[in-house]
């Protein structure tokens, strides 16, 4: 492939536009930051190889292209067992973390405990709910954008998000605290 500074600039624009969303997607799928990072690299390597095709696409189509690659990569990764193993390891790690209490000021300890609990509950969510939650919160995407990316109706995305939030609120006793 002949490369130029223009190609690098186009790639950087595509990368900067989608990297947070793609990482959030992978994180939701595999629950392992390191594996998610590797998958981001692999996904954008494919973007680089097909840059002349992907670069000129409008934002929505570009997102759809990138996420088609991302979904295929996750399937490949699951086939090799890496993602599933990482998710299981992460869940085991979270269960251990939940029991550990960090010493320090009361408020910090409380926040730390709540975050550890949140992490554990997110890890136990059904995968489709965890993915949309991650893409919304860590990826900063709207339901419409997530729907476009995953090839699903925005209403389905909103429903999954609502279910996820309800489960989190229940597990963290937020209903009772807020009542």
């Amino acid at each position: 492939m002949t490369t130029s500074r223009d190609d690098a600039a186009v790639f950087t624009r595509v990368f900067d536009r989608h990297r947070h969303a793609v990482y959030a997607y992978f994180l939701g799928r595999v629950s392992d930051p390191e594996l998610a990072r590797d998958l981001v690299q692999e996904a954008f390597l494919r973007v680089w190889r097909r840059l002349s095709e992907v670069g000129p696409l409008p934002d929505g189509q570009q997102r759809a292209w990138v996420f088609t690659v991302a979904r295929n990569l996750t399937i490949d990764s699951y086939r090799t067992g890496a993602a599933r193993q990482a998710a299981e390891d992460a869940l085991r790690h979270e269960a251990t973390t939940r029991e550990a209490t960090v010493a320090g000021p009361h408020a910090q300890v409380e926040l730390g405990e709540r975050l550890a609990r949140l992490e554990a509950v997110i890890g136990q969510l059904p995968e489709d709910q965890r993915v949309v939650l991650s893409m919304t919160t860590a990826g900063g995407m709207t339901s419409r954008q997530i729907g476009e990316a995953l090839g699903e109706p925005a209403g389905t995305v909103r429903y999954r998000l609502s279910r996820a939030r309800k489960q989190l609120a229940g597990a963290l006793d937020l209903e009772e605290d807020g009542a």
Partner: protein
Amino acid sequence: MTSHADHELDQLLAVWAQTHRLADADAEQIRQTIVPEDLALPATWWSDFNSRVSEVIARATAMPTPAIAAWT
């Protein structure tokens, strides 16, 4: 969910999201791994190129040594 619970969950998720984003340093490392760094031409590329072209032209148009011998 009450609005208070919603708000509290939003705050917790915002903190969670901060620790679950792709760090800028990691992103830059990924970008550099994918995009070759030596895309920019060296500052002396044009003068080196011109020198090489001039040398080739000079060699190609120079009178061969046997011809010079015959001439003199």
